[in-house]
């Protein structure tokens, strides 16, 4: 097991180096604007440009630049923004904090909803609650996050809403303590979780339906177990495997920056916002760092998923 984890981590490093290199080359090749000119102010002299270029290390050959970047990244030093000259590490960590806060909260919410809805739908297949739930799920999946977010703000936000219940956009950035931050997240959590609740409820429903027709479920009933125990202990345990897979991928992507729509609507300073802004400004150093973050979280969550498999299913063995 330990050997397996080490091997996977080594592969993760290889993957990160490859992804960073590709990203680096892409941003060099594509016309993203010269960061030196962007920083130099209006009508800079050639000397000034050269000085900035040297201070950013951009006068070095490309492979050395890439090497430096990777080397520093390995020490959690991502350098400074090409545009604002701010140190990137605290910037990234703050953004990461906000995103993790958003994504993990939403994930807990959507898992809870999906567990209840999915199980009931599976066990009462074809009933009216099942049809309503699955119809509602389709609506929730089809609704775009930004639209849902705006509607939620319009209805419930404390500043612009019809019913002033929850804090509105931007309240997270202003929150000072943990409670306030959680309160500020209620609307974003619900909006982000809406589509995922629906997806996961459908996933769990179909997985549960498949599991409940397995031979070992028949055995469990033949043993004389109560139906509740058959479902909870024998059905659910096997039915969650695809949920774990999906969860690993989704959480990895969302933390890595894919929660950008929700972050934008609610004005949450997360990783998605950070990378979006960086792309707009051609801030290559920041882009590099966020790409690395995304890749890192996707790789790590894939690893966690694989390890979870071994916990759920004793047949899965890693050497």
């Amino acid at each position, binding site marked *: 097991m330990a*050997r397996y984890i*080490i*091997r996977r981590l*080594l*592969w993760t490093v*290889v993957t990160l180096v490859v992804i960073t290199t590709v990203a680096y080359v892409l941003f060099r090749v594509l016309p993203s604007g010269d960061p030196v000119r962007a920083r130099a102010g209006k009508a800079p002299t050639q000397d000034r440009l050269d000085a900035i270029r040297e201070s950013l290390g951009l006068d070095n050959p490309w492979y050395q630049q890439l090497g430096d970047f990777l080397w520093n990244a390995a020490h959690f030093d991502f350098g400074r923004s090409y545009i604002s000259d701010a140190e990137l590490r605290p910037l990234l960590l703050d953004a990461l904090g906000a995103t993790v806060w958003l994504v993990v909260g939403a994930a807990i919410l959507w898992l809870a909803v999906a567990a209840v809805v999915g199980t009931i739908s599976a066990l009462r297949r074809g009933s009216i609650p099942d049809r309503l739930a699955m119809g509602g799920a389709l609506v929730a999946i089809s609704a775009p996050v930004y639209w849902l977010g705006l509607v939620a703000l319009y209805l419930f936000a404390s500043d612009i809403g019809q019913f002033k219940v929850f804090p509105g956009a931007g309240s997270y950035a202003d929150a000072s303590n943990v409670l306030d931050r959680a309160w500020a997240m209620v609307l974003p959590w619900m909006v982000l979780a809406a589509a995922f609740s629906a997806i996961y409820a459908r996933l769990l429903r179909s997985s549960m339906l498949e599991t409940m027709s397995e031979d070992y479920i028949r055995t469990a009933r033949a043993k004389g177990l109560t139906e509740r125990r058959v479902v909870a202990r024998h059905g659910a345990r096997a039915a969650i495997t695809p949920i774990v897979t999906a969860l690993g991928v989704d959480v990895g992507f969302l933390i890595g920056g894919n929660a950008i729509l929700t972050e934008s609507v609610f004005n949450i300073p997360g990783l998605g916002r950070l990378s979006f802004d960086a792309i707009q400004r051609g801030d290559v150093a920041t882009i590099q760092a966020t790409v690395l973050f995304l890749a890192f979280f996707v790789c790590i969550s894939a690893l966690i998923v694989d390890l979870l498999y071994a916990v759920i299913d004793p047949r899965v063995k890693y*050497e």
Partner: protein
Amino acid sequence: MSTQDPSLNPQAEAAIDGLQPTVEDPQAAAVAATPAVRRDTLGEGDNILEVRELVKEFPITKGLLVRRRVDAVRAVRGVSFDVRRGETFGLVGESGCGKSTTARMICRLIDPTSGSIAFDGRDVAPLRRGELGPFRRDVQMVFQDPYSSLNPRHTVGSIIGAPLDIHGLATGQGERKRRVQELMDLVGLNPEHYNRLPHEFSGGQRQRIGIARAIALEPKLLIADEPVSALDVSIQAQILNLLRRLQRDLGLSLLFIAHDLSVVRYMCDRIAVMFAGEIVELATSEELYAQPGHPYTRRLLDAVPVPDPDARARRLRARAGASTDASAPPA
């Protein structure tokens, strides 16, 4: 079979899990230690297929970043036999004994680790996939599962006609259709069902489709891997008789692989019994069932349930008598 030691972990079962046969179990160890019984000689007569020392190893790998081979599971460990022209040769054994792996190597679905496969006098084992040429036409296979071996979206006509197209044998739609319907008639399918899909047929009929596809190219050797084990008993006989009739009428050589000893006896002229990747006994059908020479063969035969409440007891008694006679003269 002794009651106190019901051979709890027979080698054959261990082999399923990809393990080397363990020698913990005394009975299995005894089986493995007994030399193979061979009642024919290799390389005599007119052989369509001569298999020599065929070996298949599946590697076990290890390593941090790059995997390297550390060991291997020997699924087939040096198998040699001949299939004579026009005969039905049986490979029988329990799951994990290597019989299917052997069959797959012979028709080159998987590559042998070592050994030779002489088909019609030419060794095809060292040839690469692209070089197989006519061999691909001359050797055809019928599979166990008539449900998964047919593409569900293709009509029966195009399934049976596909080999004709691939080898460019049928020129034009009319010619192809005529030939396919001929084949359907030959295997007992209604030629009018030319445009139906596989799911519209029962299991037995699907196996007929598989057989029609296999004989479309008039192969010299047909390899049937457990062709009836997925079918109901009353349907099994239909397929077995079909294979026997085709073999007789078309002069096919048939390599018949099965786990059911009664079926193999009914079908085959000569039989090789496989155990843990090796042939432990090879004999004609009559000899093998009248006087099994290897303890494993005997064990297999004794285990077959017979549909007669008295027959099994009689058979066991008779054999007990016979074996005391045979063991009477000192070695």
